[in-house]
C-alpha cells in the first residue's frame, strides 16, 4: 500500500464515525477554519484554479523528492475539502501522486454533495495537483 492510499484509508475511517451529513460538514467546516501554510503572495490569477465557484489558489513545492501542496480558498467548505486533498497528496513522491487512485471522495460520501457541476472545481483541483506532480517528475528527469 502506498502512503497516498494509506492516508486516504485513514480519512475514510475517520469520517465513517459520523452518522449524518451535518456532523460530516461540521468537520469539514472546522478543517476549513484551521490555519494553513499558504503564502499569500501566491494569491494571483496564475495560481487560480478554473471551474470553481469559490476561488481556489494552489501552488506546489518540492523538498527532497517529495512534493508539498499549498492552497487557499475564499469559501470555508472548499477550504475544508482542500485540507483533505493536501493531507492525501502532500509529502508524497511525484510518482505516487501521478499513479494514485482517488476513491476516498466517493467513500466518504462527498461525491453526491459535491458533484461535478460547474459549481465545483474539485476535479480541476485534483487535475492541477497531478499536473504539478508530472511537472516535478519531468524536471527531476
Amino acid at each position: 500500500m502506498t502512503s497516498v492510499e494509506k492516508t486516504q484509508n485513514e480519512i475514510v475511517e475517520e469520517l465513517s464515525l459520523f452518522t449524518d451529513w451535518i456532523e460530516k460538514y461540521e468537520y469539514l467546516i472546522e478543517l476549513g477554519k484551521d490555519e494553513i501554510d499558504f503564502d499569500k503572495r501566491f494569491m494571483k490569477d496564475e495560481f487560480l484554479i478554473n471551474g470553481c465557484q469559490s476561488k481556489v489558489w494552489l501552488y506546489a513545492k518540492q523538498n527532497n523528492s517529495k512534493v508539498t501542496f499549498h492552497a487557499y480558498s475564499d469559501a470555508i467548505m472548499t477550504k475544508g475539502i482542500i485540507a483533505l486533498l493536501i493531507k492525501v497528496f502532500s509529502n508524497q513522491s511525484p510518482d505516487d501522486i501521478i499513479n494514485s487512485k482517488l476513491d476516498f471522495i466517493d467513500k466518504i460520501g462527498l461525491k453526491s454533495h459535491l458533484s461535478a457541476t460547474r459549481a465545483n472545481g474539485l476535479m480541476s483541483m485534483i487535475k492541477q495537483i497531478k499536473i504539478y506532480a508530472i511537472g516535478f517528475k519531468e524536471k527531476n528527469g
Partner: protein
Amino acid sequence: MIDFEKIISSFPILDVKVNDNKLVYFDNAATTQTPTQVTNSIRDYFNKQNSNIHRGVHYLSNISTEDFEQSRKKVKEFIGAEKDEEIVFTKGTTDSINLVATSYQKFLNPGDEILISEMEHHSNIVPWQLCAEKTGAKLKVVSVTKEGEIDMDHLEKLLNEKTKILSITHISNTLGTINPISEITKLARKFDAKVFIDGAQAIAHQKVNVTELDVDFYCFSAHKLYGPTGVGVLYGKEEILEKLPPYQGGGEMIELVTFEKTTYAKLPSKFEAGTPNISGVIALGRAIEFIEEINLDLIFEYEAMLLNHYNEKSTILEYYEPFGTSLNKSAIASFNLKKAHHYDIGVLLDNMGIAVRTGHHCTQPLHKKFNLSGTIRASFGIYNTKSEIDYFFDCLSRAYKMLY
C-alpha cells in the same frame, strides 16, 4: 382565488426528496418546473402524432402542423401581438437575441450605437458585442443605481441620433427589478431607435402586452414559463421582421432554391430553418393554457405576497445583505450573508433540500460593479408557499450558525 391544491398536484417533482428533506424549489428564475399538463402533451405527441410539419400530405403531419400553428396563435394572443407572422419560434431567449443581433447587422454601420444596461444577462450582452465587432457599431452601457434600477437620466444622456437599437431586460434576473419599459420605449422613439426587450424573467410573472408596450422585439423561453427547455419565442413587428435577412439557411425557410439563387419563404418561416422542436412548441401552448387558467394577474398578486413575506422575514436576520432593493420588484431575491461565501451557504441549503442559485447568475459585470464575487438567489413560482419561505429562513440561520 388561486386553487392552490390543484396547482401543487400538477407538479409531481415537488414530491422529490433531497437528502431525506422535502424539496423546496427556489430556482424558478433559472427554470420553472413543468406541470403534468405539459409533460403529458409531450408524451402524447410522440405516442400519437409524431411527424414532420408543414410538408407532409398525411394524417399525422396534418394534425401536428395544425397543433403547431395553434401554439403560434396562442402565443400571439398571450402577448398581445397582432399577427401570427410576428411570432417566430426559436430555441430560447438566447437564440432569439442572437437572431436579431445577427440579422440586424445589415442595418448597422461603423459609428452607430447599440445601447444595453449594466444589469443585462450575459446573453443580452455577448450577442451585441459580437454584433458591434462585426459592424463597427459601438456598445454603450446604461448605469444601474445602487438600488438596482436603470439610471433613467443616464439612459436619456446616452440616447442620441446614432443609437440604432436598445436592448434591455424587462425584469433583472439578479436584482428582480421590473424596468419601466413603456417609459424607456418612449425615450428611444425620440431618436427612432429600435427597442428589443428580453422578457425571460417577466413572461411567467406578469401580463405582457407587446402592442401596449410598443416594443419592436420581445423574447422569452418556454422553460421559464412552466414549459419545456429548448423552445423560445421571438416577437418582432411585422414590418421590421419583413426587412431583416434570414438568420440561418435550410429547409422550411425557402420559397424556391436553385444553385444560382434562393428566394426565401414568407414570415415567420423565413426565420424557422430546419425541423423545429415540434413537441416543445405544442407543449408551450399547453403551458400557456395552464397559466391562463390560473390567471396571470392572480399569479402576480400571489408572488408579490410571497416576496413581501420574504422581505419581512429577511429583515429579522441582522446579517442578511440584500442585492437589489428597488420597490418595483418581481419575486426574485439575491443576497449575501455577512462574511459568508455564497457557495458555502448554497451547499448547506442544498443538503437541507433547498434549491437556490449561487454565483454570478450570468451577470458578472453587474456583480463586479457592486464588488461582489457572487450572491445567493431565491426566486419564486406559483407552487411556492409562505411556509417554504419560513423553512428557508430557518435553514439560513442553521447554515450560518454552522459556519460562524
